[in-house]
């Protein structure tokens, strides 16, 4: 650190001098230029469309005709839309069940893969694979076939149960697919696990703590920041899940698997109630913000924030 200091000041001094003469050489300007591709994309493809969708949320809009401002009507409509309410229930159920299951599974596999040997790299890549392909259309199609009445799962179990056709089980086909896509959480857990100092475990072992105790007293508390991060990210993903439902169940049977996003999509582009769809999108933004805010509020009760 000591010998780096003078270098830094030497570098920044001439910049300061030039700043007066030629603003293009200003560090800030350079920064803006470097971030321009992102800023442009962010503004054009995120901020502007979001602003437009906010406007549409208060409009009667069917894409074919110009939007007509109708105030809060779209939001009022949600109150009497039974399918909308059903889709909220389904989405919450899916997100709140699949996320913890996925995290538990991810942590479990991460701990199995923690040991270093020649094959661990291979295993890590293999277990990550479902996450890469899991959200894809192809896997969804495969999944649909696997859980069909004459599919692989029934063949293995030797039964003939319509998993996708039963209102109680169809959602679980989607939940299991979501749990199976545990890879990205697993990798994050894995790197966090590696950072826990081995000395803590050694000390605990000397004190006679068994494996279970070591997990709950050392591993888990030190992992809580990572768990928190994964929980927030995956919960948001859960609320926004689309492909699985769209490809596998399309909300069938009896709307028991109707995801919020799929209903929103149908309203916007199948029935051309695009204003209503935009309003639904903004309600989802509010829901996710609220859930995230609640999570952050609970942070101080269970997330270990101290240093090692």
């Amino acid at each position, binding site marked *: 650190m000591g010998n780096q200091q003078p270098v830094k000041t030497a570098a920044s001094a001439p910049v300061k001098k030039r700043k007066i003469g030629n603003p293009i050489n200003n560090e800030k300007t350079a920064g803006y230029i470097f971030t321009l591709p992102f800023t442009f994309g962010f503004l054009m493809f995120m901020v502007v469309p979001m602003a437009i969708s906010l406007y549409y949320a208060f409009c009667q809009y069917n894409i074919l005709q110009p939007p007509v401002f109708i105030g809060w009507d779209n939001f009022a409509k949600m109150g009497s839309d039974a399918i909308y309410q059903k889709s909220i229930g389904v989405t919450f159920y899916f997100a709140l069940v699949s996320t913890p299951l996925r995290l538990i599974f991810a942590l479990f596999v991460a701990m199995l893969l923690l040991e270093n040997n020649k094959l661990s790299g291979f295993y890590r890549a293999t277990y*990550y694979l479902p996450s890469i392909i899991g959200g894809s259309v192809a896997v969804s199609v495969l999944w*649909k076939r696997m859980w069909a009445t*004459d599919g692989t799962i029934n063949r293995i179990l030797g039964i003939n149960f319509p998993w996708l*056709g039963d209102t109680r089980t169809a959602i679980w086909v989607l939940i299991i697919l979501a749990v199976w896509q545990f890879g990205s959480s697993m990798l994050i857990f894995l790197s966090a696990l590696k950072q826990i100092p081995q000395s803590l475990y050694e000390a605990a072992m000397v004190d006679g703590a068994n494996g279970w105790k070591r997990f709950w007293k050392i591993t888990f508390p030190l992992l809580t920041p990572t768990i928190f991060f994964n929980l927030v990210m995956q919960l948001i993903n859960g609320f926004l899940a689309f492909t699985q439902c769209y490809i596998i169940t399309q909300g*069938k049977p009896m709307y028991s698997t109707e995801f919020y996003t799929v209903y929103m999509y149908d309203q916007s582009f199948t029935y051309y109630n695009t204003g209503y769809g935009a309003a639904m999108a903004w309600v989802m933004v509010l829901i996710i913000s609220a859930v995230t805010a609640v999570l952050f509020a609970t942070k101080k009760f269970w997330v270990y924030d101290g240093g090692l």
Partner: protein
Amino acid sequence: MSKLKRGAAAALAAAMGAGLLAGCGSSSGGTTSAASGSTTTTAASGSATTTKAASGSSSSGDTNMVFAWWGNQTRNERTSNAITKYQEQNPGVKIEGQFSEWNDYWQKLATNSAGNALPDIIQMDYQYLNQYMNTGLLYDLTEFTKDGTIDTSKWNQNMINAGTMNGKLVAVCAGINAPALVYDKAITDKAGVTIKDNMSIDEFIEASKKIYETTGYKTNIQYGTAQEIFSYWSRADGSILFNTGKVDAKPENLAKYFKIYEDGEKDGWMLSPTVFAEITIGSVEQDPLVYGDNPENQSWCTFCWSNQYVAVLKAAKEGQDMQMTTWPSADPKKSDFLKPSQFFSVSASAKNPKAAAAFINWLTNSEDANNILLGERGIPMNSDIASKVSAQLSENDQKTYTFVNDVVAKNCSDINPPYPDGYTEAGKALNTILEAVCYGQETAEQAGQDLVDQGTAALAAKAAASK
């Protein structure tokens, strides 16, 4: 990892893009090479000058048009070939073909219209005609029928009427279609059941029961797309199921139709609703008639459209003997109808509507075009062309022709007016209610009333909005 993923995705997208380009662009690419080829072979100085003139005009006087349609692989190929042919015959006209799947097509078209970038020539459907017409997005072609650009002398008057709204010809029928019940004769023979044309609903149910009792094969009427059969049955009662702003059918009549499903599930002869959770509804290849692997999930029939017959045959398994008859109804003459399978329309924003009209005229009235298209969109409404095309068809394609011309055309009534705004939503409501009936969560009686209420709510909301 994410880099890898992104790279793979980009590569995939590029590959797909290239495939699309190759597919879409093949027509124009083909033309240019064909054109240049012909000039070199003739090698006459005259032709050299004409090519020069043509290439010179390509920057100024050329007509560039976009023609969008939905469809299957066969249609895409044949239509692209037809475009190539047209461009050969009409140097200076360039047509870019854009094709998509049904669902994507309408989303794309809607967004195009929002961006004021509709294709010049649009393949239109009866279901969407009203919506596009009412919003002023379609060009009135009447002037071109008067000035001779479009020749309507040989056209079927009913089909002209179907594409005419408020006295304006906005859609030209691309082919004639009729509802068709396709069934596996191998199964009905085994059950000792004869299926005849113009069956009544009772006869159909009788047959279904007998087939179930003797062979175990079940029946699929329509599930997920039942608005079609409900409309069909309602026509026998003299009512238009989904009319502008309301459901125009009596709840007790609708309850009667829901009851067929309710009883079918109870008695076991109807396919279980769970089967439909595992397939893509509307896909011919996944229809329970051809997709099932045992009597439990296989149907002996499917309710579809005459121009899908060939696709069903293609998807059929060995040993299946597919035949075609009419949908059953209490009054087949009142129920049955000929339908324009799809239309060609010109968008109101087309730069050169006359050129677009000329192309549509060529598609519908010329032998050149129809020798390539071969009635894939349905039977040509130009009677001369239809008979000429029919002579070149395979035995199976001809079956469709005879079915439409000899069975349906002789015993049918006028088609319902174009589907009102909100039809899709009302149809979804119907299928949702039907699902509840089939899952035993709602009685048929209740369902009839529910459909009137919910369907009317959907249709009325749209009718109010379009005013």
